[in-house]
């Protein structure tokens, strides 16, 4: 008897719950976006996951200032972002590497004209280590290359001793930790080793770690936790995520430079713009062998890529507003606060602004 009643009651209750659940719509923090000021519309981007936390910060200010605008960013990875941009799936891409020749041609074809490619996110890469009793470590590029190549195996190796005459280095094995996923961080780090280590590093400039030895870990957080949990470990990771791990000072010229966002930003000023590209395509090759005082050469430069002309006026306006804010003083400061990136210097930002200002409908 009871069961017959229950048979009716249960679905009814379920339906009711569902109805109530669905009618309670908007989230507590989402107002209606009817009264819009500034630009409006939806801007879709995809690409490098390195920029994600910076993008979150940028979105906050941008969407608050332009209440009718929504920006979406899928952190699918640089390669995915570039492909989707070229295929026309997204209006802008985030990428840890600038477009190569083929991609550039394809992107120009899709855009029907020039592209705008600007550095938006510069992140210092710290050489992090976990070695008991050593709080301060100086390393030259050649030594770092040797460690990651696997030719320097012990912490009390003479090469490390030469850089740190005062440190009390133990007789511990070095476990170098590298990224197991393909990443822009690895590419920039190996680019530094390749240019600066004077033959200490033999792996070339790669996104995939080339040697078979050492410990591999997934993502920045994976490297950090592997370094933290191991003994005598050393790795490379975004400075902002290093936490309380030791960060090595890197030799530039005759000095050892501490890793700071300011020192990283200076590096960009010395970078050469890649030749043979349009005026609005500010792709740079970082000079890793600089000897200028106060420059920290291991940085990740991440770009945002957009078209110069969009058919839709609204999209053009939105993209322009977005990139202007992102590369402007305010945007760079927001990112520095939320993601620990290095703000573009004023000179560089001015160059970027000229490029961004050319975005138009057409």
């Amino acid at each position: 008897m009871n069961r017959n009643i229950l048979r009716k009651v249960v679905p009814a209750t379920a339906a009711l719950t569902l109805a109530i659940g669905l009618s309670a719509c908007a989230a507590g923090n989402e107002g209606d976006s009817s009264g819009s000021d500034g630009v409006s519309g939806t801007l879709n981007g995809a690409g490098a996951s390195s920029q994600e936390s910076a993008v979150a910060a940028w979105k906050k200010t941008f969407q608050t200032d332009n209440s009718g605008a929504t920006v979406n960013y899928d952190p699918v990875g640089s390669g995915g972002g570039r492909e989707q941009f070229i295929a026309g799936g997204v209006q802008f891409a985030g990428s840890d590497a600038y477009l190569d020749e083929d991609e550039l041609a394809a992107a120009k074809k899709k855009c029907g004209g020039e592209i705008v490619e600007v550095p938006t996110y510069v992140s210092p890469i710290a050489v992090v280590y976990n070695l008991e009793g050593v709080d301060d470590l100086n390393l030259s590029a050649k030594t770092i290359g040797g460690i990651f190549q696997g030719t320097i195996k012990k912490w009390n190796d003479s090469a490390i001793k030469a850089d740190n005459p005062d440190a009390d280095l133990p007789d511990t094995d070095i476990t170098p930790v590298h990224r197991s996923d393909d990443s822009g961080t690895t590419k920039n780090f190996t680019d530094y080793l390749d240019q600066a280590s004077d033959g200490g590093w033999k792996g070339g400039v790669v996104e995939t770690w080339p040697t078979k030895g050492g410990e591999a870990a997934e993502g920045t957080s994976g490297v950090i936790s592997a370094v933290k949990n191991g003994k005598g470990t050393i790795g490379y990771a975004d400075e902002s995520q290093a936490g309380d791990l030791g960060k090595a000072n890197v030799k530039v010229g005759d000095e050892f430079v501490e890793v700071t966002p300011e020192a990283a930003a200076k590096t960009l000023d010395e970078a050469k713009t890649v030749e043979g590209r349009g005026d609005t395509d500010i792709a740079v090759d970082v000079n890793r062998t600089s000897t200028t005082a106060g420059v920290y050469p291991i940085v990740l430069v991440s770009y945002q890529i957009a078209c110069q002309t969009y058919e839709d006026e609204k999209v053009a306006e939105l993209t322009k507003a977005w990139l202007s804010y992102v590369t402007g003083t305010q945007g760079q400061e927001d990112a520095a606060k939320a993601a620990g990136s290095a703000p573009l210097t004023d000179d560089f930002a001015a160059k970027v602004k000229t490029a961004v200002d050319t975005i138009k409908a057409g």
Partner: protein
Amino acid sequence: MTATLEPTAPRPGGGGDLHTKLSSNQLPRLLPWGVFVAALAIVLATVIANALGSDLPTTRIVLLVWAVQFLVPLLSAFVEGRRKAVDRLVTTFVVSAFTLALLPLGSIIYTVLDNGLPVLSGEFFTYSMRNVVGEGGGIYHAIVGTLLITGAAAVISVPIGLFTAIYVVEYGEGTRMARWIRFLVDVMTGIPSIVAGLFAYALFVLFFGEGVRMGIGGSVALSVLMIPVVVRSCEEMLKLVPNELREASYALGVPKWRTIAKVVVPTALAGIVTGITLAIARVIGETAPLLIIAGATDSVNFNLFGDRMATLPVFAYTSIRNPGVPPEFSLDRAWGAALVLLIIVMLLNLVARLVSFLFSPKGEK
């Protein structure tokens, strides 16, 4: 029926009243339990002592205590003979397997609870991440997305899966087609989730053009992963329905389809519902395919057929990967999202149990 049978089922070391004469050759009935409980107590005491600061070798104690468990079957071999000893040995192994499985699983649940519980709050459930950086924000948008996408996936998969199972067991049994379907469904279980996502994306690009992001695309990708699990578990359950029931129904002149709908499926309902719940649980935590086709957003979206949708696993994944500065808030939210996912599945499980309790016929069990 059940009630009359229970007392005669043999207990460890126990015989019924009829066997009193043999009891001289039996180990005391409570011996295995005593050894087991004592072992548990010792391990527990070690863990507590270590938590309080002492430094006992936990691993060795556990191994030692485990080894002691095998004394019971050994003793039994001398007292009760080979057959009983083997039985006791197997019992020890079964209990060991269970404990072995429970320890890490318990540790995982503890980790999630420990990290996730402090995060849960009113704001966490009612806020989205729109315009939130650093502290605060919530997962309302991700909960909505997960429920809608997984719900739609279930709506797609359950009928297809159930009817396929019905075809394989009831209509096509023994035919070449049924054998192939069964085989191909097994193959389908091995599709890596990311491939399912790429497939769904390629499929939707055919219809909607490049850059398509839709919740329903995520549902399709999840369905590709979910259908084989539904088919497989439904099929096993349908096969276990006694043929006598089918024959009795046919004998009463009931057409085959009504027999299936009214007799076979309800009889197997408990198992089918468990299977479906498992299938949902299998896909609700998927990350990779959803990131590709459903995208990521920080705003609430109720429309399955337009624009990006956030989901709990994608949210947890991106929060862990790119936590920003300082990382704590983002990591906390990720654990909170994982815990909420667990709670959703727990509720789903409860509902499933209620359904199978209410609607399956009370028969021989």
